[in-house]
């Protein structure tokens, strides 16, 4: 693969900026049927918790204009099962291993990081999910409060040398404040953005389409919000940003990088076209060659008016 796509997220070197977003690739195994995962920069695991979770009942997806709502609710086999059954597969895929860590309380996150740290040789970064809108406690509740973000990040910082990427929610008044809190707590990077909280109603039944009532909005429709947040944070942060939200082609990747992202995650678009990263990777290589640049040189080159 072309070296032109090489990027760094802090100390983590990725052979391409393309990371599969958490919750949209499971642990990579199913996608290995579709293409060779080693072309990827990284894979972010489904959000993991200490205990296995069945997630939310009933209908979990509601289609929207240029996107969808999901209310999966962190269904996962639990971190112990993951370590025994999926971690090696991810490691051997050839993509960087990002483990997405969720929880309901400070203790949960601490437990998770303590459990994962001994496997650091197989893990490239921990992505601390402070932003899932589909569970009652933890996640987004912590992730909307700068003080709580700083507190939990610094607690986790003391528990591991693994790079800590804090994944933030866009459902806040001031994304700079939450991103700066993560930085102050010792984060190695922030991941922007998780889903926007939304709802759809079935007008025949007068009930929410999602059995969880609300869900997380993702897909091309959220891209302008994500780009704005990445660009805002790039003006104030010293740590790198991983951009995410609505990426559907190579131009979107470039847009995120110009806005300030060092790497990107692709989620919903891969649900519609599982092998999309193959095309995007090829297009990015061509873009770099045509323009005679290395992709990483794009990061933060936005020229504001």
């Amino acid at each position: 693969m072309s070296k032109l796509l090489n990027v760094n997220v802090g100390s983590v070197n990725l052979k391409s900026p393309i990371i599969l977003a958490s919750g949209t690739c499971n642990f990579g195994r199913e996608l290995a049927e579709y293409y060779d995962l080693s072309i990827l920069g990284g894979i972010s695991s489904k959000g993991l918790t200490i205990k296995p979770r069945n997630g939310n009942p009933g209908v979990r997806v509601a289609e929207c204009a240029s996107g969808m709502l999901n209310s999966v609710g962190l269904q996962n086999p639990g971190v112990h099962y993951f370590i025994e059954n999926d971690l090696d597969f991810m490691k051997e895929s050839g993509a960087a291993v990002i483990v997405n860590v969720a929880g309901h309380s400070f203790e949960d996150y601490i437990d998770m990081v303590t459990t994962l740290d001994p496997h650091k040789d197989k893990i490239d970064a921990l992505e601390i999910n402070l932003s899932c809108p589909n569970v009652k406690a933890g996640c987004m509740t912590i992730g909307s409060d700068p003080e709580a973000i700083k507190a939990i990040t610094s607690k986790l910082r003391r528990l591991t040398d693994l790079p800590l990427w804090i994944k933030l929610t866009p459902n806040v008044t001031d994304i700079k404040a939450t991103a700066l809190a993560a930085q102050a707590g010792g984060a190695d990077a922030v991941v922007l953005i998780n889903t926007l909280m939304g709802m759809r109603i079935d007008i025949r039944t007068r009930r929410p389409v999602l059995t969880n009532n609300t869900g997380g909005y993702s897909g091309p429709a959220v891209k302008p919000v994500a780009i704005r947040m990445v660009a805002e944070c790039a003006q104030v942060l010293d740590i790198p940003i991983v951009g995410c939200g609505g990426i559907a082609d190579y131009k979107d990747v470039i847009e995120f990088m110009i806005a300030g992202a060092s790497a990107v995650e692709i989620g919903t678009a891969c649900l519609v076209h599982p092998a999309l990263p193959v095309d995007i990777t090829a297009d990015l290589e061509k873009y770099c060659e045509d323009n005679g640049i290395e992709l990483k040189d794009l990061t933060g080159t936005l020229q504001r008016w």
Partner: protein
Amino acid sequence: MATRKEYRIKLISKELLNADTCYLGFDCPEIASSCIPGQFVNISAGTMFLKRPFGIASVDREKGTFNIGVKVVGKGTEQIKDFEVGTEVDCLGPLGNGFDFEGCDNVILTGGGTGVFPINFAYETLTVIGKNVTVCEGFRDARQVILNKDGYILTTDAGDMGIKGTVIAGLDTLTIEDPAKTLVCCVGPIPMMKAVSAWAEEKGMKCLVSMEQRMACGAGICLCCTVKVKDDGPDGYKNVRCCKEGPVFDSREVAWS
């Protein structure tokens, strides 16, 4: 070997089966050569953001074509119904686990609604491989009857065609000779599948059912499409993916709700 599994396929035929259901033929040698009954495809539906899942209804392996039957229930299916012959659409498939006919001599295929589409593909396949096949299909009334074939047992709720009653009334007319060697496959609304499962289990036959759930990816990566299966864990059930572990399940595994 890795394959994208996504194809740009051309609509080659379109036929109206009844007022709101049409039968579409597509050209796609890759899917036609490898799919088995019970599997489905995920196809793009005009301006809709997500693809839509449909059971494969028939295959011509030589010509490299397959059919699906589409009942209009919303915005996506409406657009699919309006596709003109010649239209090209994105299609992911074949997806999911189909019916496993191994180890049985006789197969009873039963279903209703859009379930008759995968039943049709199963019937075509089974008659070729030479199993004893019985088909029993249930409809609301005579006007709903589609894809009927000579020798099928037919039931209607309205009683204006075939036996009056549900498919159970039709199945009850059958004499089961060797239940251990007989497989029941049912595709239809949940209440029908529940009733048929109970009927089959009571008679000592294995029963496969095909579940439906709203899907996003169809490829097992989003966990949006889960159905409940029995489990001895703390919740008493486990959520598994309809698109990946299913859509076909052993009826005894399903945690009916």
